[in-house]
């Protein structure tokens, strides 16, 4: 694998082997005092973030460092980006400075794909850490890792993704990955928060959360992305919360084994009630923990093999 740009087109065998690698890494590091592997010694990984992030950036940095890569963080604010340098020039600069892998987050959909094209000559790998409203593949992979861990399997499981589908890159990555892994995905959202063309996705669509809950193995809640909303998508936050927020009563409608996921950051009281977020049914901190191992696995699959020409 040269780049990880999207889960669309990621076949089941490749996805499963990344998840298996993450599992084995987790087991290899379990209970160890020294959480350091020599695998990526001498490789340079640069995170290039044009949007704010806590968990994605931190977990990529930890992942790289635990595998002994040199990790350098570049954010738009503290770099020449604020002087007006283009994405292309910034990327070429990072490649020329010796980056083996650039992990990029950008507000424009498709930015990671463009970057991969520009860096093809330099041989630098690119990981998409979120591009606009397009994809966030490592988030979907870590969600799948968490679901597999909690449920034992993904094949045939019924998984609802609830909330701001329109603005969410997480949902696009999850739909492609979960359906490739054989899950039955249902999107639950008000009509105003569903994108045009959703009928062509490999999912079923519902507007009624309560009707779906009893048949679910997992529910994944999405943050309502106020920063990407210009205009009235729903009457009020309170009304959204009443219709689509996961509270304790709704948790009670789900089967005993069903788990609750949230990619974070959470808006407690909006899409998820505080009591639900802190309940043992929620796998939200597991997602973050698995995120580190999963991102180690992605770096391993991108960097620990002979050069490929792509």
């Amino acid at each position, binding site marked *: 694998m040269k780049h990880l740009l999207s889960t669309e087109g990621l076949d089941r065998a490749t996805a499963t*082997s990344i998840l298996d690698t993450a599992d084995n*890494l987790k087991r290899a590091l379990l209970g160890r005092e*020294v959480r350091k592997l020599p*695998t990526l010694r001498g490789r340079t990984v640069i995170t290039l973030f044009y949007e704010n992030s806590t968990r994605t950036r931190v977990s990529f940095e930890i992942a790289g460092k635990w595998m002994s890569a040199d990790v350098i963080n570049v954010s738009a604010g503290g770099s020449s980006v604020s002087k007006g340098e283009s994405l292309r020039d910034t990327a070429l600069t990072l490649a020329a400075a010796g980056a083996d892998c650039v992990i990029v987050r950008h507000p424009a959909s498709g930015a990671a794909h463009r970057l991969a094209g520009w860096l093809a000559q330099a041989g630098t790998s690119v990981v998409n850490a979120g591009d606009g409203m397009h994809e966030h593949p490592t988030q979907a992979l870590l969600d799948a890792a968490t679901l597999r861990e909690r449920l034992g399997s993904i094949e045939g499981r019924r998984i609802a993704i609830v909330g701001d589908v329109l603005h969410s890159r997480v949902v696009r990555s999850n739909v492609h990955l979960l359906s490739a892994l054989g899950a039955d995905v249902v999107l639950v959202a008000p009509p105003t928060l569903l994108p045009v063309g959703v009928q062509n996705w490999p999912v079923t669509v519902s507007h009624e959360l309560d009707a779906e809950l009893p048949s679910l193995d997992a529910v994944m809640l999405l943050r309502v992305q106020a920063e990407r909303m210009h205009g009235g998508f729903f009457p009020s936050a309170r009304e959204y919360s009443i219709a689509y927020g996961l509270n304790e009563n709704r948790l009670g409608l789900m089967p005993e084994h069903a788990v609750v996921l949230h990619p974070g950051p959470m808006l407690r009281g909006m899409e998820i009630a505080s009591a639900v977020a802190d309940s043992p049914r929620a796998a939200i901190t597991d997602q973050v923990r698995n995120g580190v191992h999963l991102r180690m696995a992605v770096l391993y699959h991108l960097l620990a093999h002979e050069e490929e020409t792509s």
Partner: protein
Amino acid sequence: MAPRQRGATDPAGERELLSAGDVARTVARMAHQIIEKTALDAPSAPAVVLMGIPSRGAPLARRLALKIAEFSGVDVPTGTLDVTLYRDDLRRGPTRPLETTSLPEGGIDDRLVVLVDDVLFSGRTIRAALDALRDHGRPRAVQLAVLVDRGHRELPIRADYVGKNVPTSRTEDVAVLLDEFDGRDGVVLK
């Protein structure tokens, strides 16, 4: 299928070095040697741990532990140690899948660790295993048991227990077959 004559070359260019019976006898002999050399059944015995290197070192370690229990009455804990993340040749081939690492209860600190692998060749796997062990703790000592030593060492490493020494050329391939993976036991030269 009639059992093949040992040493005979079959049409596929395979030569049998050890039959299933030979493998069983060899494992039993190695178990005796481990008991003798480590004195693990003595009153002041050191705590011995067998760590198999996946894939085929793992079942070999379990078989050795069974034989050691049979001959000495001492239950020796076993574990598996995947060394993939410590290899020095990762960038010389396609992505290698990882195998499972599982340490026995109590870990390896202050214990006598016997690494178990199927074939000893360049010694690079064992070099990686020594590095991996160091990250898991500080054994009292480390020894090495291999079913086949085929020579061609590239590092100053030797085994403490050898099932069979096999002179080979570099272009040949020694394959250890184990029931757990291959449906039968044996060692063949290709």
